C-alpha cells in the first residue's frame, strides 16, 4: 500500500513541522497525492498529536473515518481528518485499534466539531469513545438493538432487526422554559428533522436536535451491493440538491486512490456542471429564505430565475437533477459547441434578471432588519466547530476548497472568495448573493477555455486496497469523501462527510439568545441539507448548560 512520495505545495513544510513537533510520536507517514498526507500514530498519543495539529499547524477539523479493517490487518482504523488550509494540505491521522474491544480517547474536548463524528463511529462500528461527554446514540433509529453495528463487515446491508418500541426519544425539559417543537414536519422545514426550541419569554435559550431521520444506509450499500463504477450513481442520490458534488467527490477519491489521469476536458465539464449546480442551489436557498421571512414575492422571483438553469442542466446532461454524468476516470457525455453558445446567452440573461432581483431584495427594509444582527456565530467558535462553506465565510473565515485544495479545473480560473465579518444571517446571505456572480463568471471563463480531447480515461484500472480522498466545495461548503478500494471491483470503505454535518452543531451557538421569530431563519441560514447529513443514522440533544434540567419522559410513542 505504499505509494511513491510526490511532494508538492505545502507538503514539505508540513513534514518539516511534523518532524519538529511530533518526531517521536509518528509511526509512519505516507503521501497519497499532491497535498494529501496520512500519518500513523499510536492510540495513546492521539490527544497530543491532535493538540499540536490544531495549535501549531492551524488544522481545522474535517471528519472522522471509522473503518472495520479486521480482514486486512486485524484492527479497526480510526482516521481523523484535518484540513491545513494555509498549507493547502489535508492531514489524516490514523490510529489502529484493538479488533476485539476497540476503544480510543475522545478528542471532543479539544475540537468541538469531533462530537458527532465520534458518536457516529461508536454507533456504526462499535468503537468505544473513552471520556466522550455525550453517551447517547446519534445515528441509528430509536430502539435499535445494542451490539448491531451496521458498518461492521459481518452484518449484511439488509439486516433489519426488530426495533424495541418501548424506547423512545425523551426531550429534556426544565420548569422555567417552554419547549417548542420545531419539526419533524414543519411548514418551514422541507425535510424531516426535529428541533426542540427551549423558550424563555420570547428568547431561545437552548435547543435540542434529533436528526438523522433520512438515514438510508448509503455507505453500507456502496460497500456491499455495488461495484465501484455503480457507486457514482448512488452517490448522486445522497442529496437531491447538490448530488453532483457527491458524485464528483467520490470519483475524484477513487481516481486519487488508483492514480488515474483524468482528461482535461472532463475536468472542465465537471467544473461547469458543479457551478451550474451552485447557481441553482443558491437561488433555491435565496427563495426559501425569502419565504421564511414572509416575502413570498422574493421566493417566486428567485425560483423563476432558477428555472432556466434547470432547463440548461437538462439540455446538457439529460436530466434536471441527478445527471448520471460521472464515471471513475471522466464523464459520460460531452458538451458540444451549440451548448457553449446557449450557455453564454443564458448566463447573460440570468445575470440581468438576478441583478434586478437582488437590488429589490436588498431595498426591502423589513428583510434587512430581520437579517442583520441575528444568528451570530463568532469566528473562534466557527473554527472550533470546523464550520464550512458560506457559514464559515460569513464568519470572516476565508475557507474555500476550490482555493485551498484546488481540484478539477478550478486552478485555471480566477474568482473571488467573498467573506463577510459581521457573523450574522445577513453575512451568510450576502456570501451566497456574491457567489452567484462568481459562479456565473467561472462558467463563462470555463466555456471560453474549454480544451479539446477525450472525456474519459481509457483502461482505468482500480487496484486493490488503495486509499484516496477528495474534498469539494459544495454550495453548502466542503464535502469530503474517503475511499479504500477493495477486491472484486468493490469499494471496501466509503465515507461521506456532507457539509451540513459540520454546520448543524454550530446552531447551538447561533440560536443562543435569538428571538423566537428569528429561529427558523437562523436554522435556514446554514442552508441545512438533512438528506446529505443523514446518509447514515443520528441522535443528538443539546442540554443547554444555563438551566437545571429535569428529565421528564413523555408518554410513550411519538405523539407530540
Amino acid at each position, binding site marked *: 500500500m505504499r505509494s511513491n512520495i510526490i511532494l508538492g505545495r505545502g507538503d514539505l513544510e508540513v513534514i518539516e513541522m511534523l518532524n519538529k513537533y511530533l518526531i517521536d510520536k509518528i509511526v509512519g507517514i505516507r503521501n497519497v497525492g499532491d497535498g494529501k498526507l496520512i500519518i500513523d500514530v499510536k492510540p495513546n498519543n492521539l490527544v497530543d498529536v491532535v493538540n499540536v495539529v490544531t495549535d501549531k499547524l492551524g488544522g481545522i477539523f474535517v471528519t472522522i473515518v471509522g473503518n472495520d479493517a479486521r480482514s486486512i490487518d486485524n484492527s479497526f482504523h480510526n482516521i481523523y481528518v484535518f484540513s491545513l488550509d494555509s498549507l493547502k494540505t489535508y492531514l489524516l491521522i490514523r490510529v489502529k485499534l484493538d479488533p476485539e474491544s476497540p476503544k480510543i480517547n475522545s478528542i471532543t474536548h479539544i475540537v468541538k466539531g469531533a462530537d458527532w463524528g465520534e458518536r457516529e463511529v461508536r454507533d456504526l462500528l462499535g468503537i468505544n469513545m473513552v471520556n466522550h461527554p455525550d453517551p447517547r446514540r446519534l445515528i441509528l433509529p430509536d430502539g435499535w438493538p445494542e451490539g448491531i453495528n451496521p458498518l461492521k463487515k459481518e452484518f449484511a446491508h439488509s439486516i*433489519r432487526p426488530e426495533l424495541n418500541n418501548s424506547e423512545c426519544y425523551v426531550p429534556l425539559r426544565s420548569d422555567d422554559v417552554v419547549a417548542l417543537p420545531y419539526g419533524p*414536519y414543519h411548514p418551514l422545514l422541507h425535510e424531516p428533522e426535529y428541533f426542540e426550541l427551549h423558550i424563555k419569554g420570547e428568547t431561545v435559550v437552548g435547543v435540542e436536535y434529533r436528526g438523522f431521520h*433520512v*438515514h438510508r444506509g448509503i455507505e453500507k450499500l456502496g460497500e456491499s451491493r455495488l461495484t465501484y463504477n455503480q457507486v457514482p450513481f448512488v452517490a448522486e442520490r445522497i442529496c437531491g*440538491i447538490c448530488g453532483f458534488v457527491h458524485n464528483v467527490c467520490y470519483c475524484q477519491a477513487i481516481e486519487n486512490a488508483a492514480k488515474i489521469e483524468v482528461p482535461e476536458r472532463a475536468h472542465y465539464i465537471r467544473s461547469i456542471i458543479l457551478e451550474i449546480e451552485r447557481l441553482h442551489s443558491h437561488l433555491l436557498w435565496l427563495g426559501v429564505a425569502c419565504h421564511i421571512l414572509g416575502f413570498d414575492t422574493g421566493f*417566486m422571483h428567485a425560483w423563476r430565475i432558477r428555472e432556466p438553469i434547470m432547463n440548461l442542466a437538462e439540455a446538457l446532461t439529460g436530466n*434536471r437533477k441527478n445527471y448520471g454524468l460521472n464515471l471513475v476516470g471522466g464523464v459520460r457525455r460531452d458538451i458540444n459547441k451549440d451548448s457553449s453558445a446557449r450557455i453564454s446567452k443564458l448566463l447573460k440573461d440570468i445575470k440581468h434578471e438576478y441583478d434586478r432581483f437582488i437590488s429589490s431584495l436588498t431595498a426591502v427594509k423589513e428583510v434587512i432588519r430581520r437579517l442583520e444582527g441575528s444568528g451570530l456565530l463568532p469566528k473562534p467558535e466557527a473554527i472550533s466547530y470546523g464550520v464550512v462553506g458560506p457559514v464559515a465565510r460569513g464568519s470572516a473565515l476565508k475557507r474555500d476548497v476550490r482555493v485551498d485544495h484546488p481540484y478539477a479545473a478550478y486552478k485555471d480560473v480566477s474568482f473571488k472568495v467573498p467573506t463577510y465579518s459581521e457573523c450574522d444571517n445577513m453575512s451568510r446571505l450576502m456570501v451566497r448573493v456574491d457567489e452567484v456572480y462568481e459562479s456565473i463568471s467561472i462558467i463563462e471563463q470555463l466555456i471560453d477555455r474549454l480544451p479539446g480531447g477525450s472525456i474519459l480515461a481509457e483502461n482505468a484500472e482500480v487496484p486493490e486496497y488503495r486509499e484516496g480522498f477528495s474534498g469539494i466545495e459544495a454550495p453548502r461548503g466542503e464535502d469530503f469523501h474517503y475511499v479504500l478500494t477493495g477486491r472484486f471491483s468493490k469499494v471496501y470503505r466509503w465515507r461521506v462527510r456532507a457539509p451540513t454535518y459540520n454546520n448543524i452543531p454550530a446552531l447551538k451557538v447561533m440560536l443562543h439568545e435569538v428571538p423566537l421569530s428569528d429561529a427558523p431563519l437562523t436554522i435556514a441560514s446554514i442552508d441545512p441539507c438533512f438528506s446529505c447529513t443523514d446518509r447514515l443514522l443520528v441522535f443528538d440533544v443539546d442540554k443547554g448548560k444555563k438551566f437545571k434540567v429535569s428529565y421528564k419522559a413523555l408518554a410513550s410513542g411519538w405523539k407530540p
Partner: protein
Amino acid sequence: MNIYKKSIWVFHLNTGGCNSCDIEILDVLTPYHDVERFGIKLVASPRHADALLLTGPVTKEILPKVIDALLAVPEPKLVIAIGSCTTGGGIWYDTYSTIGGLNELYKVLKEEYGVPEPSTVKIPGCPPKPESIIYGIALALGVVQQKVTTTTARVE
C-alpha cells in the same frame, strides 16, 4: 378516481427522500408551472389537506411520524407517491434503515392500525419532472385518463 369535485390541498411529507423530489414539488408551485391556477395549494398541516405528497423510501426513524400524519388527513384522503424510492423502495428496497417503500408502509398500516389502503397515485422517476407530477395529479382528479395498465411479473 374522481373523488374530489373541487380544489385539492396537499401536504408535503418527506419520508426519507433525498430532496430532489421535494424541490421538484416546490418547483411545481412556483411561477413556471404554478399549480395554484388549478386550485392545488400546499398547506401547513395534514389536517387541512386532501392529499399527502410522499417522497422517499420511508426510513425506520420516520415511520411512526408518517403514520401519524397519514391518520391525521381527513377522509376521503389521497396519497400521491412521488419518485422511484416511494413507489417501490428504489435502490433502498432492502437497506437496514428503511422499510422499503409505499407497499411496506401500507402493510404496516393494515396490520398494526387496521387502516385500509388509501387511494394512491404513483409517480415514478428520479426525480419525476414537474410535468409528470402535474400529470399525476390530473390523473387523480380524473382530468386525464390513465394510459398504463398494471402487469405482474413473477421472478423465481
